[in-house]
Each structure stands twice: as structure tokens, then as C-alpha cells.
């Protein structure tokens, strides 16, 4: 009895939409994707919809409480907190949005390469990666940033570099898994070239693991970027940024809490959104994230 004979192979575009649909069919995925989408949209159109100019200071209205004019009050320089919160993610999303794909790309390529080479070279490389990962990240990054300065042109490559290293592990492990499977052996036995085997058999199967990994890396990187800003090594004033805003408003927390709470809501809603989406993406692609090492 023919059960269903109407399966159609999805092209890349159809496959993309079917994955998105699958994500949205899960409540957590729908919420996550909506959060991420609104943040990105806000980053794009924010400057056109905010009520105030983010640099306008007002000495008469420093640290004011929420009011009709300033819904979330003002900061210690009298700038509108709502405006600065709405704009505070732009820099973070821009920097991490470029650095994450870079990290996944270089980490993925290196990981796949060493996973294929195997043997002693691979062992040595993994020792180095492990040693590197055992150092606290913030220290390593501070060293680089202090050496080269804090502009975007330094932050992007630095973040991409550091966050690519754990990706090596994932890509290498995924490569090992796939290489051991019979369909790769079958391709070898048929006599396909090395390049064909990598391109047709290996990469399509490693790709999904890397996509999920990339989504996770993004949320970690956002946290790192905000921490750097908080410490004064990220965005330079007066550009609004959540990390920086929290650092500035922290001293006035007791009588003007919105200065800290508002950017915190901004940052955490984005990170939660990314995490929820990544989980749903993993489920939609059939990858069990529970098994992934939490590096």
C-alpha cells in the first residue's frame, strides 16, 4: 500500500522556509524568533522612531523619574533612557552579527580540516585548543584590546578569533562522526576524489551542527561584547550601548533604577531570544543539543 507518494524534495529556499516554519510551530521557537526579529528590526529603524536625540543632554532633568515626557526617566546627563535603550543594541548587533559568521566560518574550516587529517597533527592541535579554552576569555581579550585599541575594526576580528576556537572542537567532532559513517566509506570505495567526498558527503552533514553552534556562539558573543563595554573597552561614549549604560547608571541604582533595568531588559531579551531560537533550530534540524559540550 503506497502511503504517501507526494513527497517533494525541497530546494534550498523551500528548505529554509520549512525550517523556519518548524521553528515557529514550537511555542518557544516562535517567541525566540519574534524576539530576535524585533531586535534586528529595531536596530535598523530605531533612529527614525525614537522620541529624542540620544546625545541631547538636559542639565535641568538629570536622573529624573519616569514621566509622560520621559517614559523611563533620564540618565545622569539628562538624556532620555528610553531612547538610549532602544538604540543601545545597534552597535552590539552590528559587531556580533559580523563576527559570529566569521567565527563559525574559520573555526568550522579549521575543525573540518583537522578532523579529516586526523592522527598526530590533530592531537597536537586539540591540546592547544584545550589549553586555550582553559584560560578565562575576558583576560585574553583584554590583552588584545589593550594592545590594539577599541574600535570596531579591532573588536570584530578579536571576537571572531576567540569565538572561532571552540567552533573548531565542534566542527572536528562532527567531522569525525560523519567520516566514520558507511556512506563516506561507500564513496571512498566507489573511488570518488577527496574533494568530492568533502563537498558532497561531508559538508552537508556538518553544516547543520555548525548552524546551531553559530546561533549559540552569537548569544555568548553578545554577552562578551556587553561585558567589554561595561568595563569600558567596547563602545565609546556618547554612542548608546547597553553594557555602557549599565556601567554608567549602576551608581544611581538606588534612586533611579530604570537606568539599569531598561538596558538589562534589552540585553537579556535578545539573548533569551537567540537561545530559544537556537534550541528550536536544533530540534528542527534534528540535532540533539543536549549532547553538545558546553564550551
Amino acid at each position, binding site marked *: *500500500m503506497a*502511503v504517501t*507518494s507526494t*513527497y*517533494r*524534495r525541497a530546494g534550498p529556499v523551500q528548505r529554509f522556509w520549512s525550517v523556519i516554519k518548524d521553528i515557529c510551530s514550537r511555542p518557544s521557537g516562535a517567541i525566540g524568533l519574534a524576539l530576535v526579529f524585533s531586535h534586528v528590526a529595531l536596530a535598523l529603524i530605531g533612529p527614525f522612531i525614537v522620541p529624542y536625540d540620544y546625545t541631547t543632554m538636559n542639565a535641568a532633568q538629570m536622573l529624573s523619574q519616569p514621566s509622560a515626557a520621559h517614559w523611563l526617566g533620564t540618565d545622569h546627563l539628562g538624556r532620555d533612557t528610553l531612547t538610549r535603550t532602544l538604540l543601545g543594541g545597534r552597535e552590539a548587533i552590528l559587531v556580533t552579527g559580523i563576527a559570529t559568521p566569521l567565527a563559525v566560518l574559520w573555526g568550522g574550516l579549521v575543525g573540518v580540516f583537522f578532523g579529516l587529517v586526523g592522527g598526530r597533527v590533530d592531537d597536537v592541535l586539540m591540546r592547544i585548543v584545550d589549553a586555550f579554552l582553559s584560560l578565562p576569555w575576558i583576560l585574553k581579550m583584554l590583552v588584545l584590546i589593550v594592545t590594539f585599541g577599541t574600535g570596531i575594526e579591532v573588536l570584530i576580528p578579536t571576537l571572531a578569533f576567540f569565538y572561532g576556537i571552540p567552533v573548531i572542537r565542534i566542527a572536528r567532532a562532527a567531522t569525525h562522526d560523519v567520516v566514520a*559513517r*558507511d*556512506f563516506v*566509506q*561507500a*564513496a*571512498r*570505495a*566507489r*573511488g*570518488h576524489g577527496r574533494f568530492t567526498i568533502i563537498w*558532497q*558527503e561531508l559538508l*552537508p*552533514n556538518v553544516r547543520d551542527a555548525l548552524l546551531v553552534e553559530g546561533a549559540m556562539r552569537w548569544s555568548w558573543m553578545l554577552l562578551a561584547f556587553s561585558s567589554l563595554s561595561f568595563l569600558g573597552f567596547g563602545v565609546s561614549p556618547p554612542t548608546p550601548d547597553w553594557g555602557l549604560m549599565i556601567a554608567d547608571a549602576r551608581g544611581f541604582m538606588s534612586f533611579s533604577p530604570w537606568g539599569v533595568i531598561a538596558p538589562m531588559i534589552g540585553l537579556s531579551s535578545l539573548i533569551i531570544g537567540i537561545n530559544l531560537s537556537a534550541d528550536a533550530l536544533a530540534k528542527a534540524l534534528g540535532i540533539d543539543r543536549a549532547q553538545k559540550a558546553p564550551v
Partner: protein
Amino acid sequence: MTTPPKSNGPIIAVDGLSVGFRSRAGAWLPVLRDITLSVGAGESIGLVGESGSGKSTLALAMMGYLKTGLHVLGGRVDFSGIDMFAQDRQSLEKVRGGRLALIPQNSGQSLAPNLRVGAQIGEALRLHSALPEARHAARVLDLLTQVRLPDPASIARRYPHELSGGQQQRVAIAMALAGEPEALLLDEPTTGLDVTTQAHILELLRDLARETGMAMVYVSHDLGAIARVCDRVAVMYAGEVVLEGTAAQILRDPSHPYARGLLASIPKLSDVCLPRALDGRPPPPGGAGDGCAFVARCAIATERCMVERPDLSRIADGAKTRCHLPQQVRSIPLSGERNAQQRQLPAELSLSLGDLAISYARAGLFERLTGRDTAKVATVDGIDIELRQGETLGLVGESGSGKSTILKSIAGLLPPLHGQIALRGQDDLPPRVEDRSAKHLRDVQLIFQNPDESLNPRQTIAQILAQPLKLYFGLSGQALIARTTALLAQVRLGAHYLERLPSQLSGGEKQRVAVARAFAAQPELVLCDEITSALDVSVQAAVLELLDDLRRDNGTSYIFVSHDLAVVKALSDRVAVLYQGRLCEIGPTVDVYGPTAHPYTEVLLGAVLEPDPDFVPSLSASDVVEQSPPARGCPFQRRCPKRLGAICDQTAPPPKTFAAGHTIWCHRDDLAAPQLS
């Protein structure tokens, strides 16, 4: 220990149970439909059916357990008078593992790896037995003795990885016995074990059931195993019990068309024919319609079967069958008709292996620097085999005997230590696949055991089949599509499969695609590594028929590796028996399965189970698994029931030729296997 209230009723009573899940569209789709079944004390009942028929779901439901997503739609399950689906978790947990124990598939492999065997059984006692702590140590030894493990004290101190697969399975059984269960549920407990190991475990279960008076529910797709341990059998199809009766009623002359088809699809040692394939697939949950669930595959279906669902009703011989036409079912044959052997073969050689030796042990850095050779015994040694064109050679032996290793070497994936691999008698194949010419590559194709592993999950069937066509023949465009479609048709799949992914195919369909991919190369020789062992018997029969057709049409030679002696017998012209990487016996199928046999062949044949309740396997050797071949002498010396003495340990046995082309490597002169009845 508190004895449960004794009742005269059944231990497990399933009454009108229906279980299902909710589809995306919101409808309830049944996985079990209206099951009524009871198991009395001391009774063992077998549940059989194809994969997806609901047998495991039913066994788990008897424990009051349903996989996530499944719900009880109606009916009930009682265990010793307790309504299992009305209990809270705590009281269920008390019953499970204690009075009602489950041995799941691969339970031997799921023992905790870091705990000694004795400690694990002790833990089971602590949880499920009322025995005082002080007596646990003694009880552990009792239990290990009860499952017939030699030297229980030493076994108790070992870790699971220090035991063989069969021993692990025995430990798992001992753990299940710790709570002195009234009922034992077994889900495919011997799948994945060697024939000899399986036969031994089944004997143990049979004895345990007799000794302890436990009720047993035995789930399996293997009618041979069921025949050995069960008094009663229930055959399941599409979530229903379609036939229920004593083992003899069900296995000799069943009164349901599905059960007859199932029986006919099993290869039997006593048969000379290929088994008969049962075409078609069971309906998916909810797809059974208003009539009989089997109607689409039934040879004697009538109009009535389409519209009216038959009841499970008692018939003349005392069995219960769910069929409108129990009088007509006898017209459905119980065995195959197609004779695969006795074909005229051309004299030209296809493949010759000359003194082939293969080792996994690679010389370490130290040995390479000092130029010293490690005195390791090769995994496979002294393989001399010639294969004629169009011939099928069966390769049998227990797990670890080197069957896959030899195939990998022929395919060039594992360069041998020494020896020749030649095609057509004179065309030497380079040892490494990378050094082989396009013609060589095309000539030798390999099919793997598990199609889930051997088909790339990210490629469509069209892409999978296109690979060899592009590589070997440079096909593209219209020609490529035409050829792929033709290949699919050869393995009896329609063109609408082209755009599907492997995950959208059933197990048997996937394996057909793998076969089609191998035949795309128009090979001289196809290497089949256990290609039917992941499949249901009915599907296996279809794949065997397909292989037979393809060799008729294309004149292809096969090396057919399997641990199942009945399957090998059905398809092979000649058979080679392998133990620890050494040849024991090789010859025409009739001779190898005939009265004169190597002691190891005899052991293997004795362990084969036939789906017949009166069939008694003859177990002459232990089921100990050896890790490496002995340094000298006969490879089988440590397990041989007919060992002569020092000569077997010291001198490698010489080949002796009996009938034409029938060679046995053994020192004994009196070699006779039991006659097959």
C-alpha cells in the same frame, strides 16, 4: 518477602486496550487497537510481527508504561489484579523491576560501564528485594549461578566490558531476576547476538521459565526464537492481534493469511528454495480503513474484507483468528517455490584471493624506527578463494570472524598484509582504492549492512544514484535521469521515489536503493555485507529475490556475508566457513550443509533455530567469545567439542578434500554432522 495476594486469574490481563497518539491534524491515530490478551502463571507467550506492528508498545503497556505522546484510548491492563494505568508513579515503580521485570533490547550493553557486575546486581537487590543487606552477597552469587555463568565469584568482580555479549546478557537477566518477578517481559533479548550465543540464552530462558514458574512475555520478530521459548503465540499486525493460539497451531499451519506469509518468508535450513516475499507494507497508524487491516496484501481477500473488519474469533483448531475466511487460508503456501541453486556456471574466474592476510595492528613508531616486526597474529590469514563468474559465495562465521574485514580488503578500503586480489584470473587489483583504475573501481561494488548508515541522509535518491553514473559513465541531463529511473525500476521502485530523501523510505526500500546504487556501476562482483540483517523477514525475502533476479539478468558474482546460515543457504552456490579469520571449510552449498562437516560448521548448524516448536537445537560448544586467534595450531582449538589433543594445539590442520571442491581444514578423519530432519 511479602507474597502478593494469590489469585487464580491471569497474572497479566489486557482487556480491550487501545493506545494512540494525536496527529498534527488533531485526530487520534491508534497504535494498538482493541487488544485482549492474558498471560497466566508459568505461561510464556510470544508476541510476533513486523517492525511497527506495535509489539513493543504492547509489552511496555503491560508495565503501565507508554512512550511520550502515546495515550490510552480505551481498555485496561491488570497485573495481579492491579489496574496498571490507574496507579500513581510511586506504586508503579514498586511493581516495576520487582514483581514485573523488563529485559529490553541490548540490555546487556546498557549495564553501567563503571560498576562491577556484583555491585550492579546488589543494587537491584537493594531496590527490589526484601532480603536483609547481609545476605545480598550470597544472593548475587546464587543469581549468577542461576543464569549459568561459570565461576560466579570471579564474574561478580568484573566490569561489564570484561564480559562477552552473551555473558552481559546473562547478567542483565540475573538483575531482572533479583526481585523474584512473577512476570518477565523480554523485548528482542537476543537480537544482535551470535547464533550460538542466542541459542544458549534461549535455552536459559526456557529453563528459567520452567524452574521459577514465572509468566513470560517474549517480543521478537524471530519465529525460531519464539518457537523455542513460548507455549502460546500472538501474531500482531498494524496494532491488532490477528492470530492467537498455541505455538504448534501458529507455527505449523496458521489460520491467518498474514501469519502464513510471515512463515513463508523465513529462510529455513530444511528448505531448498528461496523464501517467499510478502509484498507490500503494513498501513500506517490510522490508515487501516474500515475493513481488514491486511486486505491490501492478502492473496485471498474478497469484497467483504474491504468493508467489514473481522473479529478475533475462535475457529475449529482452537486458535483465535481475525479473518473472514479461515477455511480458505490453507490455500496460501507456507514455503517458497523458487529454487536458487543448481545453476550452470561458466568456467571463467571472477575473483581470486591468493593467500590473503589482513591485520588491523599497525606497526607503532618504535617498531618502525627499529625496523622490528611485531609478532602479532594477523586478524585474517591464509584466505585462498576462487569465485567463478555469476557465482555466489556465502561467507559465514560468528561476529569477529573477519567477514567484513575480508570484504573491506577486496574493496580496497583496508590494504592487506600480503596476498593477491585478482579479477578475472590475471588482473591484479592494487591494494589501495586510491591506486585502482576506473575499470577496477567499477568492477567491484560494496553494499553495507545498514542502509541508514550507507545512504547520505542529505542526498535525494536521485543524487545518490547519480553518483556512480556520473563517476563511471559521465552521464548527465536526460540520459542520467533515464538511467536512474531504469535502475529504480530494476529494484521495483517507482520514479516518484527519485526526489525523496532516505528518511522518507522504509528500511527495505532504502536497502533496495543501496542495491540499485551498486548495480549502477554494472559491476563484475558485488560484495554484500549482512545486507539483510537490519530488515524484517518479509523484506529480507524480497531483497533475496531481488539479488537472485539481478544475477540472472546481469551475470554478476556475489560474495554474500551473513551470520544467518539459513539465509546463506538459500542464496549461495558455494559457502565458506570462517573462524577467527581462518578458513575452516569451503565447498558447494549442498556439501557444506551436508553430512560431512568441520566441527565448527557443526556447532553453527546445531545452533540454528527453526520456526518449529519441536525443533531442538544441538548445542555442543560453549558460547565463549574469543578475542584473538591462537598463535598456532587449529584456530578452533579452544572451543572445539571434538578436539583430538596436542596435535590440534600445535599443528595447523591441513586441508582435506572430500567431494569435488569440498575442502575441510581439520585433523580428524571422522567428520559427520547430524542429519537435518
